[in-house]
Each structure stands twice: as structure tokens, then as C-alpha cells.
């Protein structure tokens, strides 16, 4: 069953249509990649999904509950986790405290922060302030924070941007394993095609705010429209 259903979502900035009627679903345990050139509307879509931006029209459903008009903190409490293109953590707090804040925010008392730091592999540096972390580590801490809330839907905006190539695979493997074991629906946007074709079960391609291709990685790879957009050959 679909965890996330997007129906005819539209958003314009002045005259520019960032989203022009986008519709697709993401099922539980499914990992979907959102691809498209710069300006295709990927980040706009993420910002609409987590409530930072209001859509002009259309519907977003999380297991049947409408997210339209919900503030970001409401969306988060309904079970949507999000990581940002530039990893956002609380710099004045240690890695452990960062995860504790995530747990407290949803009044979760059962789990310990260590559990999640262990999963992303930053146990040794648990008591170091995040301001002192390398970028790759920050991405992991951010992931631990989001996972600690056990979301039903995980949104990752360019999860590997700014990371070294060898780190990318490791982070995505981690995210994919966790998503499968917890049966989380994952939607991530990505420019690195190795990451996309290595980890996505399904790919949605956006161009100028519209879905131009959707399907398995192989189907999308051979889609003529997409080749045209990306490679300029017809």
C-alpha cells in the first residue's frame, strides 16, 4: 500500500512553474529516486512535502491523511523524516544530544540515542559537539536523528551531495538497509547516477516541474524523453 501519494501537485513562483501537476506514489519499504536536471523542481517538491512551502493546488496524502496546509513540525509528527541538501544539525550540541533532541521532540522515551548513533557508526564521537564534525559525519548524525524518530516516510534531498565518492555508497547502503528493516518508504533526490541506479527500486524523473518518466531503473534509463533532457540527443 502507498505510504505517500502525491496528486496533481502544483506550485509556481511568479510566472515560473516549479511544479506543474506532479503525481506519483511511494510504497512502504520502497526506495524511490527523484532525478532531474537543476531547476527541475526536486527541492521545491521536498519543501512542499514537508510543509516548508505551501502548494498552489493538488494533494499530498500520508497513508490517507492529507498533509496540505500542515506546518513542518506537524508533518514531522505525522511521521515524515527529512534530511537536507546541506546537512542540518545542532552545532552547539554533541552528536548524542542531537539524537536526544530528536527523540524528545516526539516524546519517545523507549529508545536510547546510542542505538541510533551505533547504527550510523559515530559511537566514538558521540560526545563531540557537532560543530567540530567533518561533513560526512554530519550527514550520518543527521540520518541518525531522523531515523531515531522512526518515520514512515523518509525524504532525503541529495543525500550524498558534498561527500567523497567512497563515502556515498556507504551512506546509501546504510540508508537502504535501515529503510528495508524498518519498512520505511524512502524518497531521495540525487544527481549521482551510480547512486540512483545502485539503490533505487523505482525512479521518477522530473523536468520543468513535470514527471517525464517513471518506472524501474532500467525502464527509465532507456526512456527516450529522458535521454533527450539529459544528453540532448533525440
Amino acid at each position, binding site marked *: 500500500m502507498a505510504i505517500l501519494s502525491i496528486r496533481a501537485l502544483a506550485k509556481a513562483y511568479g510566472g515560473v512553474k516549479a511544479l506543474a501537476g506532479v503525481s506519483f506514489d511511494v510504497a512502504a519499504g520502497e526506495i524511490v529516486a527523484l532525478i532531474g536536471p537543476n531547476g527541475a523542481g526536486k527541492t521545491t517538491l521536498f519543501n512542499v512535502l514537508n510543509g516548508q512551502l505551501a502548494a498552489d493546488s493538488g494533494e499530498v496524502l500520508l497513508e490517507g491523511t492529507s498533509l496540505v496546509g500542515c506546518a513542518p513540525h*506537524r508533518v514531522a*509528527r505525522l511521521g515524515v523524516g527529512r534530511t*537536507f541538501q546541506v546537512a*542540518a544539525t545542532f*552545532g*552547539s550540541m554533541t552528536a548524542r544530544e542531537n539524537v*536526544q533532541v530528536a527523540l524528545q521532540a516526539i516524546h519517545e522515551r523507549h529508545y536510547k540515542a546510542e542505538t541510533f548513533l551505533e547504527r550510523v557508526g559515530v559511537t566514538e564521537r558521540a560526545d563531540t559537539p557537532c560543530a567540530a564534525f567533518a561533513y560526512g559525519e554530519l550527514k550520518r548524525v543527521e540520518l541518525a536523528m531522523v531515523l531515531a524518530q522512526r518515520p514512515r516516510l523518509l525524504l532525503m534531498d541529495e543525500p550524498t551531495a558534498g561527500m567523497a565518492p567512497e563515502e556515498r555508497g556507504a551512506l546509501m547502503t546504510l540508508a537502504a538497509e535501515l529503510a528495508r528493516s524498518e519498512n520505511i518508504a524512502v524518497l531521495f533526490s540525487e544527481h549521482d547516477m551510480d547512486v540512483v541506479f545502485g539503490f533505487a527500486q523505482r525512479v521518477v524523473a522530473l523536468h520543468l516541474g513535470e514527471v517525464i518518466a517513471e518506472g524501474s531503473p532500467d525502464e527509465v534509463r532507456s526512456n527516450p524523453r529522458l535521454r533527450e533532457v539529459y544528453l540532448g540527443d533525440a
Partner: protein
Amino acid sequence: MTSSAVLLQLLNGLAGASSLFLVAAGLSLIFGVSRIVNFAHGSLYMLGMYVAVWLSGRVGFWAAVPLAALAVAVLGACIEASLLRRIYRAPELLQLLATFALVLLARDFALWAWGPEDLLGPRAPGLAGAVEIAGQAFPQYDLLLILAGPLVFAVLHFVLTRTRWGVLVRAATQDREMASALGVNQRWLFTGAFTLGAALAGLGGALAIPREPASLGIDLALISDAFVIVVVGGLGSIPGAFVAALLIGVIKAFCIGLGYSKLTLVAEFVVMAIVLILRPWGLLGRPQAEVRGTWTEVPIGRLSKRGAIAIALLALLLVVLPSLPDQYVLVLATDMLVFALFAASLHLLMGPGGMASFGHAAYFGLGAYACALAALTLHWSTAAALFTGWGAGALGAAIFGWFCVRLSGVYLAMLTLAFAQIVWSTVFQWDAVTGGSNGLVGIWPEEWLASRTAYYYVVLMVCSYAIFLLWRMAHTPFGYALRASRDSPLRASALGINVRAKQWESFIIAGSAAGVAGALFAFSKGSISPETLSVQRSVDGLVMVLLGGAHTLTGPVWGAAAFTWLQDTMARSVEYWRAGIGAVILVLVFARWRFSA
């Protein structure tokens, strides 16, 4: 009201709007380029007035006006080149404090040079009469003022849109880093903008002397008016400042003309509130561009063993203090405790909350006045009066905080200051209830607390318990959520934290603690005056927090104790103690910035 009276009030409003615009435009210009909110802008206006009055006795009014503007411009250039240039990369709070130190220095300089009495300016030769407009007399000089505003606006607009320098100023206003990356020499740009802004303030002051006398208090009265205009018009927008100055000027004139001069403050407040709800960045402003490379907060540590021992020793000392022979120590210690609570409550907003409140004295004063009124007019018991002070601080913070948390950074700081100024003016004007400028006297606690020692113990217990609660809060889930909201509002809200709600709660908690401090203060002094909630008091709080260090929990309390002692000693032994404190603030700001940079 007849139509001719309406016309006359409109003209009156436009005349007042001109000087407001001159000050606000300069403030906006300087902010746009350097991102510094120049607290001393009202002081430059004040100096413009004094210099113009002084010069017009020598060279005549019409020569004195441009000369005064020039003198203030030169002073502005010196200030920029010698002081401000060093702190452009410092946190906003340090910049604001540095410019406030200039306010204190300018105030004492004017006091030294021209004395404490108001100085009456001359009438403008040739324009001393009145013209008849719609059957009523209207001063000729005010007509000139009405023209001066749009004229200066037109000149500024021309300079900013048609000259190379103006284009560079606008480029820097849009994106400072980008402008410097393109090879714009920031040094000259910043000095130029500050000099021009200072000249406008000086001109505004000089032009105002035929209408009102030069006085020492005009600096802060004017800067808070200018802040309201800049917040309403949009920070960094000259047309916004113009529109807002007209709006506020005309509304003020109508309130006075209708015989409700006390309504002017309410009207200003309502206009500002409506604008901020509908357009948080002001009428013609735009959201602030993100400043790259801001400074990050360091973790708040838990109390170390040595710190705990120091506090235990201090507690012991405070308990045995009344047995000392010198009773003055008790008076000073009571003040220190009250201001320690005040500073600790402000620190909750500034430190964990990341919101610089420049009007924290409002809650202190509301607490003090509510407590005093409960005791004097309602004859409530001391305990009930203290609780009333608590409630008043909390209520005030709930109302003002609701608006403030919608903004951030300097906008928020200016709004808190504007709110505090509105409370101050209300207290100052409402003779029937608050006793106006005389304040309230005879606020004494009940019989059993009448002795200095007994009351000291009450203050000691209440303040130390409240400070303990505030300290503990930093490590509660609420404190974590608040710090998370400060570090990254985006991340915090995506984790389910209602950022605004947490910030609002912190306002209410801080306001209620400040209210308690104010209530205790009222009973300890026996009398209160509008000075209890003046801008000066708000800034005292900031200095206390800065002195002790905003990054630690205990720092503000030590800072409050040290500052209270310093102020007490200076005020008793040095004539120009304000300038002394200003110098101390400047030294501190530079030391702190150098130390952290």
C-alpha cells in the same frame, strides 16, 4: 473636526515626518551596507541639534544648519574609521552594544559641553512668521520642513540610482559578499555610507531646532521612533522609510490634533503590529539575505566541581552577610541579587533562545509597577503584590513575545526595543495611575519584612531559587528544544519541534522572571520611576550578560554582580559615570571580539 482642521493636522504630521525620515533613512542606509544597526543614530541627531544651536549664536541659523550637518558627518566618519570598522564581522549583539556605548559617550559629552538644561534654538530668520492656511495660522518654517523630507528623498534616490557610488551601495545592500567578490572596495563604501547617514541625522537635528529645544533625552526617544519607522518601512529600504515616516508622522499628528496625545503610542503600536503580521519584513523591505559564515554557539556545559564549590561558598557568604557591620553592603547585595535574576532571565532569551532582546526592562518595569500598584492602590499583601509583579511580567512578555518570535536577528532586537519604549512612554504619560515622571513612592513591604535584613533574606531566597530554575531549564527537554531552534530552525521544525511556540514560551518564562525581579526591586527601593524600565536598564542587562559571557549559564549572574557594583561605585564617585560605563562597554566589546576571532 472641520476639514480645515484636518488639513492643518495633516500638514503638521508631514512636517514631523520629515525629521523622522531623515533619521530613519540614515539608519537604513547604514544598515543596508554594513549590517550594523546604529543605536547612536539618535545621538548624532541630538549632537546635530546642540551644535546647530551653539553655532547659530555665532554664524546665524542658516549657516549653522549645513555646518552642523557637516560637523556630525565628520564625527560619523571618525567613528566609522576608528571603531566600527573593526567589528563588521563581529556578532550583531556586540555591534549593537558598541553603538550603545557611543550613545552613553555622546550623552555625557553633550552634558559636559552644554550642561543639563534644555537649549532653546533660534527661530529661522525670514521664516519666523505664519501663513494662513484654510483660515488658520500655520508656521512658515513647518512648510519648509514639509518640503525638506521629499527633497532629501529625491536627492538620495538620485544618488543611489544614478551614481556609480549609489549603485555600489545598492549592490552591497543586496549581497555584501558578492559585492566584495566583484572587487568593490568595502572600506570606502562603508565609510561613505556611514558619513552620509550621520550627515542626514545631523541635518535632521539641525533643522528641528526652531521647533523643539535641544535636550539630552532626545537621543533615545528619537532612536526608538526611528526603529519603529524602519521596522514598518523595511530595513535597508529608503522608500520604505519615507512611506513609513509619512504614515507614522501623520497618525501621530492626528492623535495629538484630536486631543488624544496619549493615543499616539497606541496608534504607533497598532500600525507596527498590523504591518508585522501582514508583512514581517516591513512595507517595502525584503527578507534579510543570509549572512554566510555566522558564528556558531558553543555547548552549554554542566556545572563543574569547582564552579559548584564557588557557588556553595558564595551562598554561605550571602547567608551570613547581614551579620556584617556595614549595612550598605546589604543594600548593594540586594541590588546585585535582583539584577542577577534580571540578567539570568535575559540570558534565557539571548543564550539558549538566540534572541537578542533590547527591551528586557519592559518586563522588569511591568513587574515593578504592577507590584507597586497592587500594594499601594489595592492594598494587597506583600506576597500578593509580588505575585502580581510576576504575572504582569509574564503577561507583557506573552503579548510582546507573540509578535517578536515572528522576527529574528536585528528586526527582533528593534521590535523588543520599540515595545519597551512604548511601555516606558505609557508609564511616563499616565500620571493618574503611574504617577508619570515622578513615579510611585511609599512602596514598603509589610511589618514583618520591614527590616532590611528580613527583606534581604526574602530577596535571597526568591532570586536564588528562580536563578536555579532558569539554570536547570537549559538541560530540560524544553531547554534542548529551544537551543535546537536557535542552532537550526529548519532542522528543529523538521524534527517536529514547534520553533515559534518554544521561543514564545521562553519569552513568557524570561518575562515572568524579570517581572519577579522588578517586583522585588520595587519593595527594596520603596519608590520607582519610569527609569525602572528605561532603555538604559535594558542595555544594562545586555552588558551584564556580555560581561559574564553569554555562552555560560553562570556568567550572566557574575556579570550582573560585577556590573551592579561598578555602576554603584562609579555613580557615587565619578561625575560622568555614563561615559565611564560607555568606555567599559567599548573595551569589553573589542576584547571579546578579539578574543573570539
